[in-house]
Protein backbone atom coordinates (compact mmCIF):
# COMPACT_ATOMS: atom_id res chain seq x y z
CA UNK A 1 0.00 0.00 0.00
CA UNK A 2 3.08 2.20 -0.05
CA UNK A 3 2.37 3.48 3.47
CA UNK A 4 -1.01 4.89 2.45
CA UNK A 5 -3.83 4.84 4.98
CA UNK A 6 -7.34 6.13 5.35
CA UNK A 7 -7.47 8.72 8.10
CA UNK A 8 -10.59 9.91 9.85
CA UNK A 9 -9.25 13.02 11.53
CA UNK A 10 -10.23 14.32 14.97
CA UNK A 11 -13.42 16.38 14.69
CA UNK A 12 -14.62 14.29 11.73
CA UNK A 13 -17.72 12.14 12.04
CA UNK A 14 -18.42 9.47 9.45
CA UNK A 15 -21.74 7.65 9.19
CA UNK A 16 -22.27 4.73 6.80
CA UNK A 17 -20.35 1.78 5.39
CA UNK A 18 -16.69 1.96 4.58
CA UNK A 19 -14.56 -0.58 2.75
CA UNK A 20 -10.88 0.07 2.22
CA UNK A 21 -7.83 -1.72 0.90
CA UNK A 22 -5.73 0.55 3.10
CA UNK A 23 -5.33 0.49 6.83
CA UNK A 24 -7.75 2.83 8.56
CA UNK A 25 -6.80 5.19 11.35
CA UNK A 26 -9.59 6.79 13.33
CA UNK A 27 -8.99 9.89 15.39
CA UNK A 28 -12.56 11.09 14.94
CA UNK A 29 -15.75 9.01 14.97
CA UNK A 30 -17.12 6.30 12.69
CA UNK A 31 -20.66 4.96 12.96
CA UNK A 32 -21.43 2.12 10.57
CA UNK A 33 -19.95 -0.97 8.94
CA UNK A 34 -16.28 -1.08 8.24
CA UNK A 35 -14.02 -3.48 6.35
CA UNK A 36 -10.27 -3.04 5.97
CA UNK A 37 -6.95 -4.82 6.41
CA UNK A 38 -6.45 -3.09 9.74
CA UNK A 39 -7.99 -0.55 12.07
CA UNK A 40 -6.22 1.78 14.42
CA UNK A 41 -8.30 3.80 16.87
CA UNK A 42 -6.55 6.66 18.62
CA UNK A 43 -7.43 7.78 22.17
CA UNK A 44 -9.68 10.47 20.71
CA UNK A 45 -11.28 8.05 18.24
CA UNK A 46 -14.49 6.04 18.40
CA UNK A 47 -15.85 3.27 16.18
CA UNK A 48 -19.44 2.13 16.58
CA UNK A 49 -20.74 -0.53 14.22
CA UNK A 50 -19.88 -3.81 12.53
CA UNK A 51 -16.20 -4.15 11.84
CA UNK A 52 -14.34 -6.88 9.97
CA UNK A 53 -10.60 -6.33 9.74
CA UNK A 54 -7.34 -8.21 9.94
CA UNK A 55 -6.03 -6.39 12.95
CA UNK A 56 -7.38 -3.91 15.47
CA UNK A 57 -5.28 -1.68 17.63
CA UNK A 58 -7.49 0.51 19.75
CA UNK A 59 -6.85 3.07 22.41
CA UNK A 60 -10.19 4.73 21.86
CA UNK A 61 -13.83 3.69 22.10
CA UNK A 62 -15.30 0.56 20.54
CA UNK A 63 -18.94 -0.42 20.35
CA UNK A 64 -20.70 -3.00 18.21
CA UNK A 65 -19.43 -6.19 16.61
CA UNK A 66 -15.75 -6.66 15.84
CA UNK A 67 -14.18 -9.56 13.95
CA UNK A 68 -10.42 -9.62 13.60
CA UNK A 69 -7.44 -11.91 13.60
CA UNK A 70 -5.57 -9.92 16.20
CA UNK A 71 -6.83 -7.32 18.64
CA UNK A 72 -4.78 -5.06 20.89
CA UNK A 73 -7.01 -3.21 23.29
CA UNK A 74 -6.91 -0.31 25.63
CA UNK A 75 -9.40 2.50 26.08
CA UNK A 76 -13.07 1.68 26.38
CA UNK A 77 -15.34 -1.13 25.20
CA UNK A 78 -18.98 -0.10 25.42
CA UNK A 79 -22.00 -2.16 26.44
CA UNK A 80 -23.42 -4.77 24.05
CA UNK A 81 -20.13 -5.14 22.20
CA UNK A 82 -18.93 -8.45 20.82
CA UNK A 83 -15.26 -8.99 20.01
CA UNK A 84 -14.25 -12.09 18.07
CA UNK A 85 -10.57 -12.62 17.50
CA UNK A 86 -7.95 -15.30 17.10
CA UNK A 87 -5.73 -13.36 19.45
CA UNK A 88 -6.49 -10.65 21.99
CA UNK A 89 -4.01 -8.64 23.96
CA UNK A 90 -4.88 -6.38 26.87
CA UNK A 91 -1.89 -5.17 28.83
CA UNK A 92 -2.42 -5.24 32.56
CA UNK A 93 -2.32 -1.77 34.03
CA UNK A 94 -0.30 -1.17 37.19
CA UNK A 95 -2.34 -1.62 40.36
CA UNK A 96 -2.45 2.07 41.22
CA UNK A 97 -2.36 3.37 37.67
CA UNK A 98 -5.05 4.27 35.17
CA UNK A 99 -7.19 1.44 33.85
CA UNK A 100 -5.78 0.05 30.60
CA UNK A 101 -9.23 -0.79 29.34
CA UNK A 102 -12.72 -0.36 30.71
CA UNK A 103 -15.16 -3.03 29.61
CA UNK A 104 -18.87 -2.46 29.61
CA UNK A 105 -21.25 -5.40 29.32
CA UNK A 106 -19.68 -7.23 26.43
CA UNK A 107 -18.74 -10.58 25.00
CA UNK A 108 -15.27 -11.84 24.10
CA UNK A 109 -14.72 -14.86 21.85
CA UNK A 110 -11.01 -15.33 21.54
CA UNK A 111 -8.86 -18.17 20.25
CA UNK A 112 -9.18 -20.73 17.51
CA UNK A 113 -9.54 -23.65 19.81
CA UNK A 114 -13.09 -24.45 20.81
CA UNK A 115 -12.98 -24.88 24.58
CA UNK A 116 -15.27 -27.40 26.19
CA UNK A 117 -17.57 -26.72 29.12
CA UNK A 118 -17.12 -30.25 30.40
CA UNK A 119 -13.77 -31.11 31.88
CA UNK A 120 -14.10 -34.58 33.28
CA UNK A 121 -10.73 -35.81 34.44
CA UNK A 122 -7.33 -34.20 34.75
CA UNK A 123 -5.69 -36.87 32.64
CA UNK A 124 -8.21 -36.81 29.82
CA UNK A 125 -7.17 -34.74 26.88
CA UNK A 126 -9.87 -33.91 24.40
CA UNK A 127 -8.61 -33.05 20.93
CA UNK A 128 -9.80 -29.69 19.69
CA UNK A 129 -12.80 -29.77 17.41
CA UNK A 130 -12.13 -28.86 13.80
CA UNK A 131 -12.77 -25.22 13.06
CA UNK A 132 -13.06 -23.22 9.89
CA UNK A 133 -11.07 -20.14 8.99
CA UNK A 134 -13.31 -17.96 11.15
CA UNK A 135 -12.76 -20.09 14.21
CA UNK A 136 -16.30 -21.45 14.05
CA UNK A 137 -16.64 -25.20 14.85
Amino acid sequence: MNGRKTLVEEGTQFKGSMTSDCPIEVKGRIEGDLSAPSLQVSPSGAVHGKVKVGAIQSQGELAGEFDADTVQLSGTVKDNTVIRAKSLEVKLAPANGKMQVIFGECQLEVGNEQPTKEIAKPASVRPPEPVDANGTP
Partner: protein
Amino acid sequence: MADLTADAVLRKIKTGEKVERADLRGLAMPKALLEGVSFRRCDLDGANLEGARLAKALFNNASLREAFLAGADMREANLDGADLEGANLQGAILVGANLNRANLEGANLQGADLSGARLTHTQLVAAKLGGANLTGANLSRADLSEADLSTAKLIDANLESADLSGANLEEANLLNANLRDARTQGANLKNANLTGADAPGLVKKEGTEGLKRYFGKGDVLRNAHLEFDSGASVEIESLFEQCTIALGEGTEFVVGKSGTLSGCQIRGAGRITIHGKFVEKESPGITGATQLVVTSGGSLIGAVEQPADYTRFGFEPGCILRMKIQQGKKKDGGAERSGKAGRQR
Protein backbone atom coordinates in the same frame (compact mmCIF):
# COMPACT_ATOMS: atom_id res chain seq x y z
CA MET B 1 1.08 -75.80 66.26
CA ALA B 2 1.79 -73.11 68.89
CA ASP B 3 4.63 -73.67 71.35
CA LEU B 4 2.73 -72.39 74.38
CA THR B 5 -0.82 -72.22 75.67
CA ALA B 6 -2.27 -69.16 77.38
CA ASP B 7 -1.73 -70.75 80.80
CA ALA B 8 1.87 -71.58 79.95
CA VAL B 9 2.49 -68.00 78.90
CA LEU B 10 1.03 -66.68 82.15
CA ARG B 11 3.16 -69.12 84.17
CA LYS B 12 6.30 -68.01 82.37
CA ILE B 13 5.45 -64.38 82.98
CA LYS B 14 4.87 -65.00 86.69
CA THR B 15 8.18 -66.81 87.08
CA GLY B 16 10.01 -64.12 85.13
CA GLU B 17 10.84 -66.39 82.20
CA LYS B 18 11.09 -64.89 78.74
CA VAL B 19 8.51 -65.68 76.06
CA GLU B 20 10.50 -64.03 73.29
CA ARG B 21 10.69 -65.71 69.88
CA ALA B 22 7.91 -68.15 70.87
CA ASP B 23 5.37 -69.52 68.47
CA LEU B 24 2.11 -68.16 69.89
CA ARG B 25 -0.05 -68.37 66.81
CA GLY B 26 -3.75 -68.28 67.61
CA LEU B 27 -3.09 -67.57 71.31
CA ALA B 28 -6.32 -66.56 73.02
CA MET B 29 -5.77 -64.17 75.93
CA PRO B 30 -8.56 -61.59 75.76
CA LYS B 31 -8.53 -58.99 78.50
CA ALA B 32 -5.32 -60.47 79.93
CA LEU B 33 -3.04 -58.32 82.06
CA LEU B 34 0.22 -58.34 80.13
CA GLU B 35 1.67 -54.91 80.85
CA GLY B 36 5.38 -54.60 80.12
CA VAL B 37 5.68 -58.21 78.90
CA SER B 38 8.16 -58.85 76.14
CA PHE B 39 6.82 -60.66 73.06
CA ARG B 40 9.78 -59.68 70.92
CA ARG B 41 10.03 -61.69 67.72
CA CYS B 42 7.07 -63.87 68.78
CA ASP B 43 4.70 -65.26 66.21
CA LEU B 44 1.27 -64.08 67.33
CA ASP B 45 -0.49 -64.41 64.00
CA GLY B 46 -4.23 -64.63 64.52
CA ALA B 47 -3.89 -64.24 68.31
CA ASN B 48 -6.87 -62.93 70.25
CA LEU B 49 -5.79 -60.18 72.61
CA GLU B 50 -9.03 -58.24 72.58
CA GLY B 51 -9.17 -55.70 75.39
CA ALA B 52 -5.85 -56.96 76.79
CA ARG B 53 -3.81 -54.64 78.94
CA LEU B 54 -0.55 -54.41 77.06
CA ALA B 55 0.81 -51.03 78.16
CA LYS B 56 4.60 -50.82 77.62
CA ALA B 57 4.61 -54.38 76.25
CA LEU B 58 7.38 -55.18 73.78
CA PHE B 59 6.43 -56.50 70.35
CA ASN B 60 9.57 -55.52 68.44
CA ASN B 61 9.69 -57.46 65.17
CA ALA B 62 6.84 -59.70 66.33
CA SER B 63 4.35 -61.07 63.84
CA LEU B 64 0.76 -60.14 64.65
CA ARG B 65 -0.83 -60.69 61.26
CA GLU B 66 -4.61 -60.84 61.46
CA ALA B 67 -4.37 -60.58 65.28
CA PHE B 68 -7.45 -59.41 67.13
CA LEU B 69 -6.44 -56.47 69.32
CA ALA B 70 -9.67 -54.46 69.35
CA GLY B 71 -9.93 -52.28 72.44
CA ALA B 72 -6.49 -53.36 73.70
CA ASP B 73 -4.61 -50.91 75.86
CA MET B 74 -1.21 -50.71 74.21
CA ARG B 75 -0.12 -47.29 75.36
CA GLU B 76 3.65 -46.81 75.08
CA ALA B 77 4.00 -50.34 73.72
CA ASN B 78 6.95 -51.00 71.46
CA LEU B 79 5.87 -52.40 68.10
CA ASP B 80 8.96 -51.33 66.18
CA GLY B 81 9.17 -53.41 63.02
CA ALA B 82 6.18 -55.56 63.99
CA ASP B 83 4.02 -57.12 61.29
CA LEU B 84 0.38 -56.22 61.95
CA GLU B 85 -0.94 -56.72 58.44
CA GLY B 86 -4.70 -57.12 58.54
CA ALA B 87 -4.77 -56.86 62.34
CA ASN B 88 -7.86 -55.54 64.07
CA LEU B 89 -6.93 -52.65 66.37
CA GLN B 90 -10.30 -50.98 66.33
CA GLY B 91 -10.63 -48.65 69.32
CA ALA B 92 -7.21 -49.71 70.64
CA ILE B 93 -5.25 -47.32 72.80
CA LEU B 94 -1.83 -46.78 71.27
CA VAL B 95 -0.99 -43.45 72.91
CA GLY B 96 2.77 -42.87 72.68
CA ALA B 97 3.34 -46.30 71.14
CA ASN B 98 6.35 -46.99 68.96
CA LEU B 99 5.15 -48.28 65.58
CA ASN B 100 8.20 -47.21 63.59
CA ARG B 101 8.74 -49.40 60.51
CA ALA B 102 5.75 -51.56 61.48
CA ASN B 103 3.56 -53.07 58.80
CA LEU B 104 -0.09 -52.13 59.28
CA GLU B 105 -1.20 -52.69 55.71
CA GLY B 106 -4.96 -53.12 55.62
CA ALA B 107 -5.16 -53.02 59.42
CA ASN B 108 -8.31 -51.76 61.09
CA LEU B 109 -7.48 -48.83 63.36
CA GLN B 110 -10.87 -47.15 63.29
CA GLY B 111 -11.39 -44.99 66.34
CA ALA B 112 -7.99 -45.97 67.74
CA ASP B 113 -6.11 -43.48 69.89
CA LEU B 114 -2.66 -43.04 68.38
CA SER B 115 -1.96 -39.61 69.84
CA GLY B 116 1.76 -39.02 70.20
CA ALA B 117 2.52 -42.38 68.58
CA ARG B 118 5.65 -42.86 66.47
CA LEU B 119 4.85 -44.15 63.00
CA THR B 120 7.87 -43.18 60.94
CA HIS B 121 8.39 -45.34 57.82
CA THR B 122 5.29 -47.30 58.86
CA GLN B 123 3.34 -49.17 56.20
CA LEU B 124 -0.29 -48.05 56.47
CA VAL B 125 -1.34 -48.82 52.91
CA ALA B 126 -5.15 -49.10 52.74
CA ALA B 127 -5.31 -49.02 56.54
CA LYS B 128 -8.64 -48.05 58.07
CA LEU B 129 -7.99 -45.03 60.27
CA GLY B 130 -11.43 -43.42 60.09
CA GLY B 131 -12.04 -41.37 63.23
CA ALA B 132 -8.65 -42.28 64.68
CA ASN B 133 -6.89 -39.81 66.93
CA LEU B 134 -3.40 -39.12 65.56
CA THR B 135 -2.88 -35.83 67.35
CA GLY B 136 0.84 -35.10 67.62
CA ALA B 137 1.72 -38.43 65.98
CA ASN B 138 4.90 -38.70 63.97
CA LEU B 139 4.01 -40.16 60.57
CA SER B 140 7.00 -38.89 58.64
CA ARG B 141 7.74 -41.06 55.59
CA ALA B 142 4.79 -43.30 56.46
CA ASP B 143 3.01 -44.93 53.53
CA LEU B 144 -0.65 -43.98 53.90
CA SER B 145 -1.57 -44.46 50.28
CA GLU B 146 -5.22 -45.43 49.80
CA ALA B 147 -5.69 -45.26 53.58
CA ASP B 148 -8.99 -44.10 55.02
CA LEU B 149 -8.33 -41.14 57.30
CA SER B 150 -11.80 -39.65 57.10
CA THR B 151 -12.66 -37.57 60.17
CA ALA B 152 -9.29 -38.51 61.69
CA LYS B 153 -7.66 -36.04 64.04
CA LEU B 154 -4.21 -35.18 62.70
CA ILE B 155 -3.73 -32.01 64.74
CA ASP B 156 -0.01 -31.12 64.97
CA ALA B 157 0.79 -34.45 63.29
CA ASN B 158 4.07 -34.78 61.42
CA LEU B 159 3.35 -36.07 57.92
CA GLU B 160 6.58 -34.88 56.37
CA SER B 161 7.36 -36.87 53.21
CA ALA B 162 4.44 -39.19 53.94
CA ASP B 163 2.65 -40.82 51.02
CA LEU B 164 -1.02 -39.84 51.12
CA SER B 165 -1.74 -40.56 47.48
CA GLY B 166 -5.29 -41.78 47.03
CA ALA B 167 -5.95 -41.43 50.75
CA ASN B 168 -9.35 -40.36 52.00
CA LEU B 169 -8.93 -37.31 54.25
CA GLU B 170 -12.51 -36.13 54.06
CA GLU B 171 -13.30 -34.00 57.10
CA ALA B 172 -9.94 -34.85 58.63
CA ASN B 173 -8.56 -32.25 61.00
CA LEU B 174 -5.03 -31.33 59.89
CA LEU B 175 -4.75 -28.22 62.04
CA ASN B 176 -1.08 -27.15 62.19
CA ALA B 177 0.00 -30.47 60.68
CA ASN B 178 3.34 -30.72 58.92
CA LEU B 179 2.76 -31.86 55.33
CA ARG B 180 6.07 -30.84 53.83
CA ASP B 181 6.93 -32.95 50.80
CA ALA B 182 3.90 -35.15 51.43
CA ARG B 183 2.51 -36.84 48.32
CA THR B 184 -1.17 -36.03 47.98
CA GLN B 185 -1.96 -37.07 44.42
CA GLY B 186 -5.55 -38.24 44.20
CA ALA B 187 -6.17 -37.65 47.89
CA ASN B 188 -9.67 -36.61 48.88
CA LEU B 189 -9.37 -33.45 50.99
CA LYS B 190 -13.04 -32.54 50.93
CA ASN B 191 -13.90 -30.42 53.96
CA ALA B 192 -10.52 -31.20 55.52
CA ASN B 193 -9.28 -28.56 57.94
CA LEU B 194 -5.88 -27.38 56.73
CA THR B 195 -5.71 -24.29 58.89
CA GLY B 196 -2.13 -23.54 59.82
CA ALA B 197 -0.88 -26.67 58.11
CA ASP B 198 2.67 -26.43 56.86
CA ALA B 199 3.85 -27.89 53.57
CA PRO B 200 5.22 -26.43 50.36
CA GLY B 201 3.39 -29.25 48.60
CA LEU B 202 -0.02 -28.27 49.90
CA VAL B 203 -0.05 -25.32 52.25
CA LYS B 204 2.69 -23.08 53.47
CA LYS B 205 3.22 -20.04 55.59
CA GLU B 206 5.19 -17.11 54.30
CA GLY B 207 6.07 -14.77 57.09
CA THR B 208 4.08 -11.60 57.21
CA GLU B 209 2.66 -12.03 53.72
CA GLY B 210 0.01 -14.32 55.10
CA LEU B 211 -0.69 -17.87 54.11
CA LYS B 212 0.36 -19.30 50.79
CA ARG B 213 -1.84 -22.22 49.87
CA TYR B 214 -0.77 -24.61 47.18
CA PHE B 215 -2.89 -27.38 45.78
CA GLY B 216 -0.61 -29.74 43.93
CA LYS B 217 -0.85 -31.47 40.61
CA GLY B 218 -2.98 -34.61 40.71
CA ASP B 219 -5.10 -33.52 43.68
CA VAL B 220 -8.85 -33.48 43.11
CA LEU B 221 -11.30 -31.40 45.12
CA ARG B 222 -15.00 -31.87 44.54
CA ASN B 223 -18.00 -30.02 45.91
CA ALA B 224 -15.81 -28.12 48.33
CA HIS B 225 -16.41 -24.64 49.68
CA LEU B 226 -13.16 -22.81 50.25
CA GLU B 227 -12.60 -19.44 51.85
CA PHE B 228 -9.30 -17.62 51.67
CA ASP B 229 -8.62 -14.70 53.94
CA SER B 230 -7.64 -11.26 52.87
CA GLY B 231 -3.99 -11.15 51.89
CA ALA B 232 -3.69 -14.90 51.33
CA SER B 233 -1.92 -16.28 48.31
CA VAL B 234 -3.37 -19.34 46.61
CA GLU B 235 -1.97 -21.43 43.78
CA ILE B 236 -3.84 -24.32 42.24
CA GLU B 237 -2.31 -26.99 40.03
CA SER B 238 -5.10 -29.44 40.88
CA LEU B 239 -8.53 -30.28 39.52
CA PHE B 240 -11.34 -28.51 41.34
CA GLU B 241 -14.84 -29.62 40.44
CA GLN B 242 -18.07 -27.95 41.51
CA CYS B 243 -16.27 -25.88 44.12
CA THR B 244 -17.21 -22.45 45.42
CA ILE B 245 -14.32 -20.24 46.36
CA ALA B 246 -14.57 -17.05 48.40
CA LEU B 247 -11.64 -14.65 48.17
CA GLY B 248 -10.86 -11.99 50.74
CA GLU B 249 -9.85 -8.52 49.63
CA GLY B 250 -6.53 -8.59 47.79
CA THR B 251 -6.22 -12.37 47.84
CA GLU B 252 -3.84 -13.55 45.15
CA PHE B 253 -5.48 -16.48 43.36
CA VAL B 254 -3.51 -18.29 40.67
CA VAL B 255 -4.72 -21.20 38.56
CA GLY B 256 -1.47 -22.80 37.43
CA LYS B 257 -0.82 -24.33 34.02
CA SER B 258 -1.94 -27.73 35.25
CA GLY B 259 -4.83 -26.31 37.23
CA THR B 260 -8.43 -26.77 36.16
CA LEU B 261 -11.48 -25.29 37.82
CA SER B 262 -14.49 -27.02 36.33
CA GLY B 263 -18.02 -26.00 37.26
CA CYS B 264 -16.66 -23.64 39.87
CA GLN B 265 -17.56 -20.19 41.14
CA ILE B 266 -15.21 -17.55 42.53
CA ARG B 267 -16.49 -14.69 44.61
CA GLY B 268 -14.80 -11.71 46.18
CA ALA B 269 -12.32 -8.91 45.63
CA GLY B 270 -9.33 -11.06 44.78
CA ARG B 271 -6.69 -10.79 42.08
CA ILE B 272 -7.08 -13.77 39.77
CA THR B 273 -4.55 -15.10 37.28
CA ILE B 274 -5.45 -18.02 35.04
CA HIS B 275 -2.64 -19.98 33.39
CA GLY B 276 -4.79 -23.14 33.26
CA LYS B 277 -8.53 -23.54 32.77
CA PHE B 278 -11.60 -22.03 34.34
CA VAL B 279 -15.08 -23.22 33.39
CA GLU B 280 -18.09 -21.87 35.19
CA LYS B 281 -21.18 -23.84 36.10
CA GLU B 282 -23.56 -21.10 37.06
CA SER B 283 -23.29 -17.63 35.65
CA PRO B 284 -21.48 -15.49 36.61
CA GLY B 285 -18.59 -17.81 37.40
CA ILE B 286 -16.43 -14.97 38.69
CA THR B 287 -17.83 -12.09 40.71
CA GLY B 288 -16.17 -9.04 42.17
CA ALA B 289 -12.55 -9.70 41.13
CA THR B 290 -10.44 -6.56 41.25
CA GLN B 291 -8.01 -8.02 38.73
CA LEU B 292 -8.32 -10.81 36.19
CA VAL B 293 -5.46 -11.96 33.99
CA VAL B 294 -5.64 -14.82 31.50
CA THR B 295 -2.19 -15.67 30.24
CA SER B 296 -1.10 -17.31 27.03
CA GLY B 297 -2.36 -20.89 27.15
CA GLY B 298 -4.97 -20.06 29.77
CA SER B 299 -8.68 -20.38 29.07
CA LEU B 300 -11.78 -18.94 30.61
CA ILE B 301 -15.33 -20.00 29.79
CA GLY B 302 -17.93 -18.07 31.68
CA ALA B 303 -19.21 -14.73 32.80
CA VAL B 304 -17.35 -12.20 34.90
CA GLU B 305 -19.30 -9.73 36.97
CA GLN B 306 -17.18 -6.70 37.68
CA PRO B 307 -17.23 -4.86 41.00
CA ALA B 308 -18.63 -1.31 41.09
CA ASP B 309 -15.21 0.17 40.30
CA TYR B 310 -14.46 -2.28 37.46
CA THR B 311 -12.12 -5.21 37.12
CA ARG B 312 -8.57 -4.61 35.95
CA PHE B 313 -8.20 -7.01 33.00
CA GLY B 314 -5.11 -8.41 31.36
CA PHE B 315 -5.19 -10.84 28.41
CA GLU B 316 -2.12 -12.31 26.78
CA PRO B 317 -2.07 -13.34 23.11
CA GLY B 318 -2.76 -17.08 22.96
CA CYS B 319 -5.40 -17.10 25.68
CA ILE B 320 -8.79 -18.64 24.95
CA LEU B 321 -11.89 -16.76 26.04
CA ARG B 322 -15.59 -17.48 25.76
CA MET B 323 -16.43 -14.76 28.12
CA LYS B 324 -19.21 -12.36 29.04
CA ILE B 325 -18.33 -9.30 31.01
CA GLN B 326 -21.11 -7.95 33.17
CA GLN B 327 -21.41 -4.84 35.24
CA GLY B 328 -21.66 -5.18 38.99
CA LYS B 329 -24.73 -4.14 40.88
CA LYS B 330 -24.66 -0.59 42.10
CA LYS B 331 -24.08 -0.31 45.82
CA ASP B 332 -26.62 2.47 46.41
CA GLY B 333 -29.02 1.57 43.60
CA GLY B 334 -29.12 5.24 42.70
CA ALA B 335 -27.39 7.15 39.94
CA GLU B 336 -25.63 5.52 36.98
CA ARG B 337 -22.13 4.41 37.62
CA SER B 338 -19.61 7.08 36.77
CA GLY B 339 -17.59 4.84 34.45
CA LYS B 340 -16.92 5.57 30.84
CA ALA B 341 -18.36 2.31 29.52
CA GLY B 342 -22.01 3.34 29.76
CA ARG B 343 -24.79 1.82 27.72
CA GLN B 344 -24.49 2.26 24.02
CA ARG B 345 -27.18 4.40 22.46
